[in-house]
């Protein structure tokens, strides 16, 4: 037995092999030493961590053909075959160079011309929370109005970006064009956006030079991405003097359903804050929202969003040509449906989406019966495929059919057209500091029987860790407005070339950006419309034939600065826009500065959270220099200017935990100091009488209580 024990000890002891020393240095591609890299023999305990200079050294008892590995966070793992045989070599000196992986953190981001809000991406100027907590209403657009490039237009809804008209800015929800993102228009009153800001997890506000994946917008694209699966099951109610709302979201393992109903009646609110307009019936509106989410696989998601709204307003409009006011009754019904599916198959990311929108305005204007219907049906598919490194190629196609349907008493008219498009775009990373996005978009419209070809390019070059220089060029096309298409289809696309150069600095808490641009508008449609309604612009001007001979330009500088002072729970941003623009379109007799362009616009947003009372306070100040307005008594077209615009709004949100439920009590007041703002003037046909276009109320108040119930 003793002998057996001795033998076994002997056998074990011969397992011990001679030792070999491995040492060297781990560096990056610039030769800088990398500390804390893990250098080791594969499938063994033998290895070491590099020190602060990148040097490492260890002893191994492994032998034979082995693999030496070196790994470090953010770098590609290094592998080297080595032959460990103490008889041949007792010491190895190996210098290892690690190559950095292209990650979101260290790689340049193509961003000329756009502001993005997202929780998922890093180094982003805005977060979705900023969108809902900025401005006096929880509206996507009031936050966007504080960004440079946006004009402060208070008499009309829509986004007026860098000298562009509202119709030149389009809204996309989950890649699909939205035909009616705002409530029906009423003269001189801005209507709100239809869709709640809370539905979106990502917002890209492009003030120009946007991707080839989107088209039919000469100036700007607002790209909204809806939430994926909600985090949990919850219910919410909102209580406001304006109305009430309730929602419930049920979350299962791989799917969810949400339903929301809202009812608004502005009558009690208008009784409390007198309006400048006279209402027969203050606006009433009701909407139903439905959302369904399903994850059929770990990478895929199916989304369905349905919306139905109906609203009524009955009011009086001042008429400078008649002794009595006009009576306007507006009934609107809007149905919107968006369904899409996104998944990844191997290396192919696929998106298929469809959207449908049916909007109907029934208007009674004095004794006239007017109907306006809009129907949109759209389909889009996008496929993207990664190439080496972070390079990708994306291509896709879309088709949008739009039908307009109008009736004026016994007169009816209708047009229907289809625009088809195809696009291809590639993100090319020449290095992790230099990237290019090159794309092209092709469109064909059956009503014009013409096609267009739009190149889009964006370059980004990273300077140091936080700085970046961007350049973008793109050509953008848009169909003439429907009012012209009703009369003639012998028209061409309107188009604009954008040239953008910017510098930005994004460090954790400090964001700075300065952007210069030049826009060249060509082939704008000009001409007089025979059936212009009383409130349409400049009806008394001479008759101009309808052609594509309009033109224009816009140039300017946008500056943005944001600093989040987390220590003091304070966050502020400052925007400044300089805009120089002129255009000749619609029934302009000559080239002129349009009424929606202020030369200087300045915004200041401040947010401060007071922990002791768990209330966040927000302040927004906006200043814009005067805008032009049409004065028939002035020989020079659009040469009169309003006085400058000022607004200071305050908001406070008190966050509390009521009976186990998160509750927010929100209060805001718009135009607190009571600045007497004037947006422009309207004149009677003979030019004798005029009327200032002013806000609907001097100060607007808003109060609301939002309760979130979670089930646990």
């Amino acid at each position, binding site marked *: 037995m003793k002998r057996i024990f001795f033998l076994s000890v002997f056998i074990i002891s011969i397992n011990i092999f001679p030792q070999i020393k491995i040492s060297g240095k781990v560096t990056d591609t610039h030769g800088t030493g990398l500390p*804390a890299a893990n250098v080791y023999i594969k499938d063994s305990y033998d*290895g070491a961590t590099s020190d602060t200079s990148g040097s490492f050294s260890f002893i191994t008892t492994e032998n034979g053909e082995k693999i030496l590995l070196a790994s470090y966070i953010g770098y590609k793992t290094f592998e080297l075959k080595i032959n460990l045989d103490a008889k041949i070599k007792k010491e190895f000196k190996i210098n290892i160079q690690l190559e950095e992986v292209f990650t979101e953190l260290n790689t340049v981001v193509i961003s000329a011309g756009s502001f993005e809000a997202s929780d998922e991406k*890093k180094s982003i100027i805005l977060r979705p929370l900023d969108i809902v907590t900025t401005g006096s209403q929880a509206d996507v657009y009031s936050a966007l109005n504080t960004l440079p490039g946006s004009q402060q237009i208070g008499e009309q809804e829509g986004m007026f970006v860098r000298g562009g008209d509202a119709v030149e800015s389009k809204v996309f929800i989950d890649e699909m064009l939205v035909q009616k993102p705002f409530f029906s228009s009423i003269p001189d009153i801005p209507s709100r956006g239809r869709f709640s800001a809370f539905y979106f997890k990502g917002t890209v506000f492009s003030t120009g030079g946007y991707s080839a994946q989107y088209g039919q917008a000469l100036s700007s694209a607002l790209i909204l991405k809806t939430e994926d699966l909600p985090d949990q099951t919850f219910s919410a109610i909102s209580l406001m003097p304006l109305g009430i709302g309730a929602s419930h979201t049920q979350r299962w393992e791989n799917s969810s359903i949400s339903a929301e109903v809202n009812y608004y009646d502005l009558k009690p609110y208008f009784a409390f804050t007198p309006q400048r307009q006279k209402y027969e019936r203050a606006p009433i509106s009701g909407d139903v929202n439905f959302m369904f989410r399903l994850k059929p696989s770990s990478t895929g998601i199916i989304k369905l969003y349905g919306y139905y709204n109906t609203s009524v307003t009955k009011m009086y409009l001042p008429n400078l040509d008649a002794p009595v006011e006009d009576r306007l009754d507006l009934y609107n019904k809007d149905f919107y449906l968006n369904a899409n599916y996104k998944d990844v198959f191997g290396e192919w990311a696929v998106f298929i989406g469809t959207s449908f929108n049916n909007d109907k305005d029934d208007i009674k204007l004095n004794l006239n019966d007017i109907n306006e219907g809009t129907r949109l049906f759209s389909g889009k598919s996008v496929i993207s495929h990664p190439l080496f490194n972070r390079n990708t190629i994306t291509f896709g196609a879309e088709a949008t059919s739009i039908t307009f349907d109008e009736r004026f008493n016994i007169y009816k008219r209708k047009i229907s057209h289809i625009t088809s498009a195809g696009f291809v775009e590639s993100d090319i990373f020449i290095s992790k500091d230099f990237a290019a996005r090159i794309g092209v978009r092709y469109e064909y419209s059956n009503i014009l029987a013409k096609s267009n070809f739009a190149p889009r390019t964006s370059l980004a070059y990273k300077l140091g860790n936080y700085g970046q220089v961007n350049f973008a060029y793109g050509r953008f096309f848009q169909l003439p407005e429907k009012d012209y298409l009703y009369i003639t289809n012998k028209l061409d696309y309107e188009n604009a070339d954008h040239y953008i150069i910017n510098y930005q600095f994004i460090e954790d808490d400090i964001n700075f950006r300065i952007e210069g641009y030049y826009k060249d508008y060509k082939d704008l449609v000009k001409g007089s419309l025979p059936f212009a309604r009383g409130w349409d612009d400049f009806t008394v001007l001479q008759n101009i034939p309808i052609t594509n001979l309009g033109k224009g330009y816009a140039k300017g500088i946008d500056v943005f600065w944001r600093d989040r002072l987390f220590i003091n729970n304070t966050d502020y941003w400052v925007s400044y826009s300089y805009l120089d623009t002129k255009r000749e379109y619609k029934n302009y007799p000559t080239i002129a500065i349009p009424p929606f362009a202020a030369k200087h616009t300045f915004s200041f947003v401040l947010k401060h959270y007071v922990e002791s009372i768990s209330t966040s306070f927000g302040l927004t100040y906006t200043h814009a220099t005067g805008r032009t307005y049409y004065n028939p008594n002035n020989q020079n077209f659009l040469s009169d200017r309003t006085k400058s615009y000022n607004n200071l709004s305050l908001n406070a949100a008190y966050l509390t935990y009521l009976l186990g439920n998160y509750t927010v009590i929100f209060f805001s007041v718009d135009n607190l100091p009571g600045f007497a703002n004037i947006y422009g003037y309207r004149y009677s046909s003979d030019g004798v009488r005029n009327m200032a276009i002013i806000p609907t109320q001097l100060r607007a108040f808003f109060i609301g209580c939002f309760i979130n119930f979670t089930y646990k």
Partner: protein
Amino acid sequence: MKYFIYILVLICTLSLINKTYAQDEKYKTAMKNNILLIDSAKTIQDLQTLANNFERIGNAEKNKWLPFYYAGYIYILINLYENDNDTKDMYLDKADIFINTADSLEPKNSEILSLKAFVAEMRISIAPMTRWMKFGTIFDNYIDEAIIADTTNPRPEFLKGQMIYYTPTQFGGGFENAKPILEEALRKYNNFKPIDEIHPSWGRAQLEEILLNSEQTKTN
């Protein structure tokens, strides 16, 4: 001759047993040595060295969950020493990789589920305002699963109590709300016996520190 073959077979078997025994001893010793160093590691470089050691052990052993568990745990600790938010997230991404490997080797383990909850808590602390909704739910779910998986494990309750303790009072947090849970965790720590010296046993010191500090501020 027959006798000789017997002996030979016996020797071979014994040597095999010895070898696996030696391998197991080597594993335990390596684990023990590294675990002992965790508490004294005070810099990112020190912790990174330990994480690398555990990563090597895990990769060599392949089917043992503890090395990956500790590698993940140490990346959570590294995140606490880092100031830059994006880098913090990068360390937590790394922690996630190791914890998921451990989870695939040992599913439904209370310790691993607790660590998953710990990562969620760290994610919230980076940007509480924007992240509490998403990661709060994830945290709660892992804590619940961890308690069900092993009712004697004190760490899920400790993490839960710690989370409530650091949540502002107006959102249902603060010491008074955390106290019963922290005390429950302490009771479990008193009764908890780790399987052996390489199984998780951390948290007690941090828990006692919270309890002591809060009682002191109250008496002041």
